[in-house]
């Protein structure tokens, strides 16, 4: 029964929500809105489970003095600081919680994001080495697109027409490849959804009888 009931719920909701997509009536919209509310409610409970899991993992690491347990103290301190400041002083614009968020979390996130610039440089260097015909074509296309989208490309627009060529590369060969992939993705998504709704794909049910 632990498998049959979730499978039946999955089938029923899968069919109902597929039909709902084609019904614009107010009852159908009510159903969709309520399903979305349920999703939020489940997500909130799941977040609580996630938080408990996070605390459990790091507390175990500290108490059992596992490798790099000191980092777990930092993680637990962050969790404790957020909970204490959030419940203690609220989450208003000038609250300690928002100060922690604005002056610690956001700069740290921005730091991680800024690493992308360096990684793009190193990845580009590796990719654009013209060792094969494909890599050479890629290099030429990349140089044209990059130059065509910066002011330098527009300066030499009269002679080389780099912005126009760049646009053409993006609008035709690039767009055709993207659409090809997206068509495949759409079909794959339908197939996966169908397998789950029909109960062919059951690995999401996990263990138990």
């Amino acid at each position, binding site marked *: 029964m632990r498998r049959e009931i979730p499978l039946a719920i999955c089938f029923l909701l899968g069919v109902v929500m597929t039909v709902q997509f084609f019904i614009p009536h107010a009852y159908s919209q009510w159903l969709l809105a309520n399903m979305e509310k349920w999703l939020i409610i489940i997500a909130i409970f799941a977040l609580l489970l*996630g938080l408990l899991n996070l605390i459990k993992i790091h507390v175990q690491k500290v108490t059992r003095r596992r490798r790099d347990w000191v980092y777990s103290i930092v993680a637990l301190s962050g969790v404790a600081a957020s909970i204490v400041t959030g419940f203690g002083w609220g989450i208003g614009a000038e609250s300690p919680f928002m100060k922690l968020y604005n002056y610690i979390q956001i700069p740290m996130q921005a730091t991680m994001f800024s690493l992308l610039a360096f990684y793009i440089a190193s990845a580009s260097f590796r990719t654009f080495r013209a060792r094969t015909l494909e890599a050479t074509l890629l290099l030429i296309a990349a140089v044209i697109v990059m130059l065509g989208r910066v002011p330098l490309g527009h300066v030499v627009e009269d002679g080389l027409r780099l912005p126009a060529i760049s646009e053409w590369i993006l609008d035709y060969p690039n767009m055709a490849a993207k659409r090809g992939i997206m068509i495949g993705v759409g079909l794959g998504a339908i197939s996966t959804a169908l397998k789950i709704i029909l109960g062919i794909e059951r690995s999401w049910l996990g263990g138990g009888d």
Partner: protein
Amino acid sequence: MKKIGVLLAVLALGGFAFAEAAPGPAGVTAIDLPNDAGKTIVLSWPASPLDKEKTFQGYEIQRRAPGETAFAPIGQTAPGEFGFTDQPSEAEDGTKHLVENGVKYEYRVFALPGKGEPVAMGEAAAVAKGQWYNTDRTNVLLGIAFVTSVIVFFIFRAKSGAKLFVRKIAGLEAVDEAIGRATEMGKPILYVSGLSDASDISTIAAMTILAKVAKKTAEYETPLIVPCFDPIVMMVEKEMVKEAYMEAGKPDAFDEDSVFFVTQSQFGYVAAVDGIMVREKPATNFYMGAFFAESLILAETGAATGAIQIAGTDRVTQLPFFITACDYTLMGEELYAATAYLSRDPLFLGSLKGQDWSKGAIMILLILGTILLLISTDAGLYFANLFKTAAESAG
């Protein structure tokens, strides 16, 4: 033959007569907005001769509900705007403007000249109602019905024992090799199932691949690390990995803490996973599912640690980054094909075959559309419009 000729002539004349008798678009028209939940009426009117004047103020729309004696203004449009949508709204002072379903509303439109009295454009009435079927989505319905039929057909064919050929996918062929490498090196395997939630179909695909990977790691008793971005995904993946270990006959080898929640902060998650890569130095990294700006940061860090990396995503913008930094990349639909490929289950292979045939049908339609466009622009555009969807439709 003569009778048929007469009949055709009568029909043609009838059609001509009908076309002649049909009223022109004079005056104000009010219609219920089609394919919506109701509570919306769309008004339109022809241009007033006054509209050409420089001092022209625009058009005023007035409405009268049943039981009301006088018309009340409900809105105004600028010169050159010949339409108005009446729908529920709330003013800044909290006054609510309602449009109820099943109620007949009467409308009047006035042209507002720069000087002098407003000029009546005409009157119209309409009743708003919700529809039970969105006709704008008929093409989507037919498309889904076709693809579903093809997939179900091939699933049944596979069930009946038909042998189905599936082309080799390098990224999936390498899964065994990658797990074997980690086992030989005595290092763990890192599995990242994307940064989206459980309602994302690519996350579901990533979770099903994890089940197959976990079964192999269980067989080889290779440590598995699964840091999760979403708590629901974590709960499901924990159960899936546990089940995989049970299926492999190694329930004791399952580590409850191997699947854990990290954070829902995008770059916080990246920092944590990068830290795991640098500290634990996994021999194999899997990146499956939905990825965003963090894809290259993850993949480049993994490449720097010397891990063999297999990625799979349906996010077109992230594919180049994975192709650059990973050893193998599953592109788009290959992510969804992975479960079938790894399990070799006839039912899964049948669905995969159905996808391929559907793709073949789409290719034929694309070629047909291209030929039609080359022959006649009108015919080609008409054909292309058959596949357009109304993105703004309700629901």
